């Protein structure tokens, strides 16, 4: 309506079309951290597009259950989704590589690989048959190993340990003698409190404080070997994306990239504040997993990853690419980041 300039093209001269998109997520609405990214994204898009594209965010279960986000985007129920790639392992065994690999890359390295190391291309190729385009959707940073009801002094304490730990981490735990347990979100806290499980991992101090896990277990172990920098994802229905005018497409992409960085920024700020509160106000003791446990877990992780690679050619191809980038990053970060961490 506001196009009064005479030199506008026909397309621009037409009354500007507005778009209303639905964005389904794997998190409860307003979930701290993870659930913030889609809300941030929606705000960015709304502002940048001057209201031409509005995005309505749905929490898990409001439109579709959390684990159905991928299907919902693929079938066009929603134009967008926000989730974690490891949830789609059943469709694409290689998907978990794009969320978290035990003893794998951290957030900084993951962002480097995705955006400058060819990772995003591999990711988008993987989802292409479904008509879904993935983009980086935030990163939690290094997580914590989890909350344990009993002290872990050696690998023996892992024998028969009932722990709620999903994904590849669970497989690794099993390989060293633990029992991975799947529980629904509502059952986790009570199960830990009553001792039905011995341990649980969650996210990091920010979410763990929020979940109140310090009231259910005494020992908070580090580091999050199983999720050293969990990558989240935005999913976009390919057709919906292509049907947008190019300026709105650009707005969507830039907003996703900004929301991706924003999540890591938020976690960086909130995690240390939360850890401070856990230690100083709630008297939580943070411990490191003993070396023999870490060594065994690392060894088991390599085996589990090798098994996965053997079973699925896509996994092997993408994991090789991941590993070759990781090897370089590890070498350099040994000289830079790690050296500096030791110095400061």
């Amino acid at each position: 309506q506001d196009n009064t300039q005479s030199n506008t093209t026909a397309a621009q001269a037409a009354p500007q079309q507005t778009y209303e998109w639905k964005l389904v997520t794997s998190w409860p609405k307003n979930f701290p951290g993870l659930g913030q990214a889609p809300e941030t994204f929606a705000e960015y898009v709304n502002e940048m597009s001057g209201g031409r594209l509005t995005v309505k965010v749905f929490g898990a279960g409001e439109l579709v259950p959390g684990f159905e986000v991928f299907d919902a985007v693929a079938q066009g129920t929603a134009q967008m989704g926000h989730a974690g790639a490891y949830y789609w392992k059943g469709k694409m065994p290689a998907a978990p590589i794009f969320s978290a690999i035990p003893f794998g890359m951290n957030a900084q390295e993951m962002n480097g690989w995705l955006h400058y190391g060819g990772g995003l291309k591999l990711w988008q190729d993987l989802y292409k048959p479904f008509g879904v385009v993935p983009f980086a959707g935030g990163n939690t940073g290094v997580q914590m190993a989890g909350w344990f009801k009993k002290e872990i002094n050696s690998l023996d304490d892992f024998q028969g340990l009932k722990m709620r730990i999903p994904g590849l981490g669970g497989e690794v735990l099993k390989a060293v003698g633990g029992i991975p347990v799947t529980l629904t979100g509502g059952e986790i806290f009570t199960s830990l409190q009553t001792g039905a499980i011995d341990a649980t991992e969650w996210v990091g101090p920010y979410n763990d404080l929020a979940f109140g896990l310090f009231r259910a277990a005494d020992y908070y172990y580090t580091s999050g070997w199983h999720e050293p920098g969990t990558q989240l994802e935005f999913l976009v229905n390919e057709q919906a994306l292509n049907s947008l005018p190019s300026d709105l497409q650009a707005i969507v992409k830039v907003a996703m990239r900004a929301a991706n960085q924003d999540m890591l920024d938020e976690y960086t700020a909130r995690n240390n504040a939360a850890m401070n509160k856990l230690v100083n106000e709630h008297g939580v003791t943070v411990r490191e997993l003993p070396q023999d446990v870490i060594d065994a877990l690392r060894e088991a992780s390599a085996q589990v990853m090798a098994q996965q690679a053997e079973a699925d050619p896509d996994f092997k191809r993408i994991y090789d690419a991941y590993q070759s980038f990781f090897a370089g990053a590890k070498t350099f970060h040994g000289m830079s980041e790690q050296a500096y961490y030791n110095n400061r």
Partner: protein
Amino acid sequence: MAFSSSRLPSVIQALDTFSRRVCQACSALSLVMVVVMLVIVVLRYGFQMGWIALQESVTYLHGAVFLLALGYTLQCDGHVRVDVFYRRFSPRRQAMVNFWGTLLLLIPVCGFLLYYAVPYAADSWALMETSKEPGGLPLVFVLKSLIPLGIGILLLQGVSELCRSFLNWRYNTEVQ
């Protein structure tokens, strides 16, 4: 009560028998479910052992039990009704309610659910979709197929109910 089966059109009888047989088969799974659950508990708390696949198998059994029994439950009039007025209706009037209900509610609902659930399951078959948990059952396509299967059986039973209620209503075939 019901008129004798020899006077039922064979289609009603065939459909009734079909959903009953399916339900009989899947009702055995409810017993299996109890046993597997016990095994899981004993293994976990008694022997410190556990498998994700075993845990997931309970979900599969559960899904089979309630989905495949939807049809026979309809046949036995096991789906809850608000029977404040219904229970006082004459059998003919009840048959009329069931006829229109089946035609206007059950059949469209099942048709609608099938319309979306069939491609949903088919997509899963195309991928041979497995569990999202490592170590889980690689049979998610089977679990997803139970949905159109169960709804389909409900629809078939609905057709039987439609015929039966039509006969009872229009021809007053019900023996009073």
